[in-house]
């Protein structure tokens, strides 16, 4: 077991290091910058007043009662949000150590070499405990080192502890899903859906029906009342993490390798795949369809809170003033913000489709297909077509979901046409990201990760930019600086052409480079 643990650790340590480094530096960057931006309690109280609206609550969770101290502010704006990243970290590492290894046949080799199933599983658990513990320790030590008055030891400890608990929750859930589902792709898809829908569900219920929100693990974080009441009792539900691990072990112990509890074995007739585009679609179909369903749901859950926004604005004199006469302005402004966020989420599926091309290369399929006289241009071109289609449909469905879920709300004054225009307005971002992806793949088979980092950067700037009024200079590097914010503003055709054109140029460069490059 010790040897297998060491092997797994060696295999994943760089990935784990970068995740922990990223999460910790992002988190620890915040308290000092908050301190600088809002040095006095009065500053923070003003901020709190503006933040007490459903739009922000949907993003960060409910605001605690009492003073908006530095600690409360930090936990309110960061904890729920960082939980997504911590969850993603755990899902990816856990999946790569369990189902991915099994799919690749490595687990079978290991198990044949005098390492028991118990040993393998113990190594998987220990690695999960270890990485989450290190992350928690780094966070705790970092937060302690600031020495801000409102960020006391108990609060810091609880912050670190909930990160540990939340991480382990998704680590356990992933290992459990690894026993239930037939392949690593399925495991990743399903658990990622839980992670994202959990967030969307919390967003909707936090605004519309706070007592229902408690089903989502994100809400437990809000209920911890970090840095004020410190309700440690809300750590208890995170016990589910170890429970998942136990259930996973019981299933893993008696299961055939390569088998799964849920088989999903559909006996269909033989398909006739007559072109490379059909092949590419067949390979990415599950991915695309599940993302599209997710986008529709995310749009719908955002749309469902628009009604509450109306009534909320009705009560609040200050927001009413901010929003202008009639109070419609704020809702529409909020819709504009949501459209940006939905767009950024909708950029993930095109990138994942492009990732399939790399996967095809890694598995030496491209080399093989090349001998069928399928040109490299066609190979990449077909994935670009699918990526663009997936991207457009993602934006369109998210907007349609938003529209459909807010149909019952009176007086928003947005037509289906407005939502459609918005999908078109942000489509150049899809072109840009797909183009960048194609360009990086054309350069080298290992560079694709950069486009994901760029997407993350876009997310942070748009998200934190909203909350902190981050300098516009950060937005200059994102397409959202140039594209007009529909439906508040009319679409700027010139900006669309510029952003989209950049994307097309990158795409063409990518295609040319890919044609000439050696396959991995």
């Amino acid at each position: 077991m010790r040897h297998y643990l060491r092997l797994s650790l060696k295999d994943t340590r760089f990935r784990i290091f970068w995740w922990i480094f990223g999460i910790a530096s992002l988190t620890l960057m915040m308290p000092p910058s908050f301190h600088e931006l809002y040095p006095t309690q009065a500053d923070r109280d003003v901020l709190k007043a503006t933040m007490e609206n459903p739009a922000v609550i949907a993003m960060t969770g409910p605001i605690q009662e009492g003073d908006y101290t530095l600690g409360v502010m930090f936990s309110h704006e960061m904890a729920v949000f960082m939980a997504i990243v911590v969850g993603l970290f755990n899902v990816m590492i856990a999946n790569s150590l369990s189902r991915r290894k099994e799919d690749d046949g490595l687990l079978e080799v290991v198990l044949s070499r005098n390492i028991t199933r118990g040993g393998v599983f113990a190594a998987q658990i220990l690695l999960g405990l270890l990485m989450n513990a290190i992350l928690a320790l780094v966070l705790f030590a970092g937060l302690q080192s600031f020495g801000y008055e409102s960020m006391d030891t108990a609060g810091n400890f609880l912050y670190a502890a909930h990160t540990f608990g939340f991480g382990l929750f998704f680590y356990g859930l992933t290992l459990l899903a690894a026993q239930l589902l037939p392949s690593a792709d399925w495991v990743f898809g399903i658990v990622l859906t839980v992670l994202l829908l959990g967030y969307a569900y919390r967003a909707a219920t936090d605004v519309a029906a706070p007592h229902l929100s408690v089903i989502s693990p994100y809400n437990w974080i809000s209920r911890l009342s970090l840095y004020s009441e410190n309700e440690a009792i809300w750590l208890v539900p995170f016990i589910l993490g170890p429970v998942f691990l136990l259930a996973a072990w019981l299933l893993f112990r008696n299961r055939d390798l390569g088998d799964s509890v849920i088989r999903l074995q559909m006996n269909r007739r033989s398909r006739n795949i007559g072109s490379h585009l059909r092949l590419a679609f067949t390979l990415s179909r599950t991915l695309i369809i599940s993302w599209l369903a997710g986008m529709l749901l995310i749009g719908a859950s955002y749309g469902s809170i628009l009604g509450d926004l109306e009534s909320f604005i009705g009560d609040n004199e200050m927001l009413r003033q901010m929003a202008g006469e009639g109070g419609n302005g704020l809702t529409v402004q909020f819709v504009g913000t949501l459209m940006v966020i939905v767009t950024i989420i909708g950029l993930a599926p095109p990138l994942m489709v492009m990732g399939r091309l790399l996967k095809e290369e890694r598995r030496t399929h491209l080399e093989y297909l090349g001998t069928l006289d399928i040109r490299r241009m066609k190979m990449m071109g077909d994935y670009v077509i699918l990526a663009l289609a997936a991207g457009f449909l993602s934006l369109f469905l998210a907007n349609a979901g938003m529209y459909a879920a807010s149909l019952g709300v009176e007086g928003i004054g947005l037509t289906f046409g407005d939502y459609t225009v918005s999908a078109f307005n942000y489509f150049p971002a899809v072109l840009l990201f797909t183009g960048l992806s194609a360009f990086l793949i054309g350069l080298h088979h290992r560079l694709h990760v950069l486009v994901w980092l760029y997407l993350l950067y876009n997310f942070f700037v748009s998200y934190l930019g909203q909350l902190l009024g981050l300098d516009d200079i950060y937005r200059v590097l994102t397409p959202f600086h140039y594209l007009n914010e529909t439906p508040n503003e009319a679409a700027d055709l010139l900006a669309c052409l510029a952003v989209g054109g950049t994307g097309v140029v990158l795409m063409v460069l990518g295609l040319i480079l890919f044609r000439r490059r050696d396959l991995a």
Partner: protein
Amino acid sequence: MSVLELKGITKRFGKFTAVEEVSFEIREGEVFGFIGPNGAGKSTTIRAIIGAISPTSGEVRLHGKPVTAQPDYRKHIAYVPGDVQLWPNLTGGEVIRFFMEMSGNADTEKMETLIREFRLDPKKKCKTYSKGNRQKVALISAFLSDADLLIFDEPTTGLDPLMERTFHRHVLSAKSEGKSILLSSHILSEVEKLADRIAIIREGKIIETGRFSELKHITRVHYLVRTPEDLAAVGRMEGVHEFRQEGGEAEFLVDADRVKDVLAALKRYELEGLETLPPKLEDIFMRYYDAGSGAS
């Protein structure tokens, strides 16, 4: 006329030179054996032929023209990779049909025959296939294509002996149709059985090319002799290597061009049994290594 011609192919990855100045040609209707140990550069050479990588220098010519001047040259090629990786969620039948569609072939009758002869269950998903079954999918697809150059990279490593024979039969029938075949292998007996000419590659360089009969001199024959007598004198003869005698059994290798002398010498002893083991690839290379170390 040569179907495929390699002219001084060199491929470097950074500072590492994978193959250096590799040249050979394959003629119409010929089976060409390409042999060498793992890591010698066989796959790199093949990947340069099929265009997965471009050579640092040198030229690949097909039907007399450089492939860089004919973007569609690969329609003349059918390839079976050494490690066949298929799409886990497609069935074997779907993959074979896809390959047929892509090469514009619709001979379903021939497909069914091949599937039957190779005993493949085409309804199963590729992820459930063993290495041998994945190889069968690729082999069937290759034999179905109209390409006139078939390239096989270690094609029989996952096949059982019966399937190996089926494969050999189809190689010879493709040859009789006038197709050319590049057969990369480290199983010498297979190459010996099928190939008209061979090239031997070691550490990225071609060290021998020619007809198998011409190259006999570089192989060694492995003898197992049962005798009550002491054969030490035979062990000292020129061309005899790795001589060992324990009890009533002696074992040694003989350079192919010395076999005649050694057999003549053995006649003088009382032999209870004489077994000849087929030459193995490593025996060939041992000779080169011996020569190399002797010189240094």
